[in-house]
């Protein structure tokens, strides 16, 4: 009753992250389960080594992709719930004031699990649609065509269990977040600033002050901006530099997943940021601040974290591929040596700079469209 079904299914960011995770895990784990019984048929030691490496790759990729993306989806889910509670605090407050228990209100947050279900179910179906071509790509020469079998346990593991777990966690998180007193929900949080901070604040230029204020009021977005750039950097570099390690299809798939994750996360973060600062932007514009100054005050503070995310992504992809080669392909002689791909790094950096600046430009236009009148009418 308190949270509408629409609120639950519009979390497209979570759906996309879940989609990517389940899409990769579906064909990797299905391949793993279908190939596992074929070990006894192998006689050649070189082929056995390659076979073991393929199995390890499938397991490793599923665990890393599934684990990391599930963690990201969970953080996103908690972020959305917190955002929902903050933006609907008055409505939730009145429901609590009327006498609805915290448990009952938190129970209505089950709808947030719907976005997880949509993403997982779609990922599973699309994963199946690509299964044959992925199998052909992964199968070692000489092993013949591997039959595709449907594994019910994977459907449960990749669709129903994540949906149930995420739904339960959504309710639990909401239960904890709704611990706030009724009056605080009705009237919103009041901020107390220490005398020292107040003095420091007065000494800073206004735009700089706004930058810090925006950053501190939306701390969780720092994570999403950095994560988006991390995805861009890691997945694009990985996709472009592993042509000697895997097939071109896998490389393109990694590249595509990286771009989707980066774009969706960045879009979600900046849209949230701008929507949450509409009033500030409109007042600044009304007072005569330029679009450049408005953009800088809202978006500028996140730029260092975007660069940090990019740097971490570069280190991560190098480390991950190095570990894969040293550990997974340890017994396979034909795997070439892997080195940090400097040209690909600079190419990705250039692409990153272009995309980031283009995105900031697009959002500057969006900021330009915000009018004082529109914000006044909304209130």
């Amino acid at each position: 009753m308190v949270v509408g079904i629409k609120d639950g299914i519009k979390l497209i960011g979570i759906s996309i992250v879940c989609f990517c995770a389940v899409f990769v895990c579906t064909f990797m784990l299905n391949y793993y389960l279908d190939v596992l019984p074929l070990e006894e048929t192998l006689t050649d030691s070189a082929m056995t080594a390659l076979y073991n490496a393929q199995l390890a790759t499938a397991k490793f990729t599923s665990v890393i992709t599934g684990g990391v993306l599930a963690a990201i989806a969970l953080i996103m889910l908690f972020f959305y719930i917190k955002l929902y509670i903050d933006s609907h605090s008055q409505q939730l407050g009145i429901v609590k004031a009327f006498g609805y228990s915290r448990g009952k209100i938190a129970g209505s947050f089950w709808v947030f699990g719907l976005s997880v279900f949509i993403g997982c179910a779609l990922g599973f179906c699309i994963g199946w649609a690509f299964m044959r071509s992925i199998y052909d790509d992964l199968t070692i020469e000489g092993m013949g065509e591997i039959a595709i079998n449907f594994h019910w346990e994977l459907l449960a593991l990749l669709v129903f269990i994540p949906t149930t777990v995420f739904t339960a966690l959504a309710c639990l998180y909401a239960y904890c977040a709704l611990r706030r007193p009724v009056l605080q929900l009705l009237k919103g949080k009041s901020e107390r600033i220490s005398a020292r901070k107040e003095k420091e604040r007065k000494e800073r230029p206004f735009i700089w002050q706004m930058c810090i204020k925006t950053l501190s009021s939306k701390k969780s977005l720092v994570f999403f901006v950095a994560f988006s750039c991390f995805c861009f950097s890691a997945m694009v570099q990985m996709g472009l530099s592993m042509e000697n390690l895997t097939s071109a299809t896998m490389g393109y798939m990694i590249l595509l997943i990286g771009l989707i994750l980066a774009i969706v996360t960045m879009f979600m973060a900046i849209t949230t940021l701008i929507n949450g600062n509409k009033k500030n932007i409109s007042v600044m514009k009304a007072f005569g601040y330029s679009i450049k100054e408005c953009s800088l005050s809202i978006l500028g503070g996140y730029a260092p974290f975007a660069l940090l995310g990019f740097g971490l992504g570069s280190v991560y992809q190098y480390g991950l591929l190095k570990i894969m080669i040293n550990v997974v392909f340890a017994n396979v002689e034909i795997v070439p040596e892997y080195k940090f791909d400097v040209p690909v790094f600079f190419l990705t950096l250039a692409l990153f700079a272009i995309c980031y600046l283009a995105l900031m430009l697009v959002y500057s236009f969006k900021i330009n469209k915000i009018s004082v009148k529109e914000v006044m009418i909304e209130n």
Partner: protein
Amino acid sequence: MIKAENVVKTYNSQEVLKGISLEIYDGEFVVILGASGSGKSTLLSILSGLEKADGGHIECNGVCLDALKDDQLTAFRKEQIGFIFQQYYLLSHLNVEDNVKLGANLANNKDYRQIIEAVGLKDKLKSKPSALSGGEQQRVCIARALAKNPKILFLDEPTGALDEVTGREVLDYISKLQKERGFTVVMVTHNVNIADMAEKVVKMNSGKIVEIYQNSARKSAYEIGW
């Protein structure tokens, strides 16, 4: 009956309520009158169990509020209290009927449509709050509060956001329904004229009660000044 004895409340080391003592009897229409910052809304929050006092004793229909934990206060409000605020706090994604059901469900009240009819919104059952005027939205709030059959109705500046015509209309609904159903009304306002509608008036200033008086005759919403 509500009984407050020597109630004290402090925010950020500023004493907002300075030893309030007050008695409100069942079925009474009480107006708490005061200027902004006089502590009247804080008193309403404490009397209704929305927040706890820092000192003193509050008893409401035999329940000692100062001893209750947060969950127990929620259960107490569910059983006994209805609220109407200046800001309507309607659930924007629910229509009029569902907003009223929000209150009715708590009391297992299946006859909530009668209340919607009583506040004149029979034709707006399926309308969303955004499609209603301020007065209509406040009438939904009245229906929502009354649908849970409260023993005490707390109102915080219910006409603060309304024009004179709509304000009188809303007060008239509240007054009529109170007479019909016999619940206690505790209304906070800064409007001196509205005090003429009450049986008992509690005047507050700087966190203290400065005067309590009974009106010899209650005026209707259309007889008071504005």
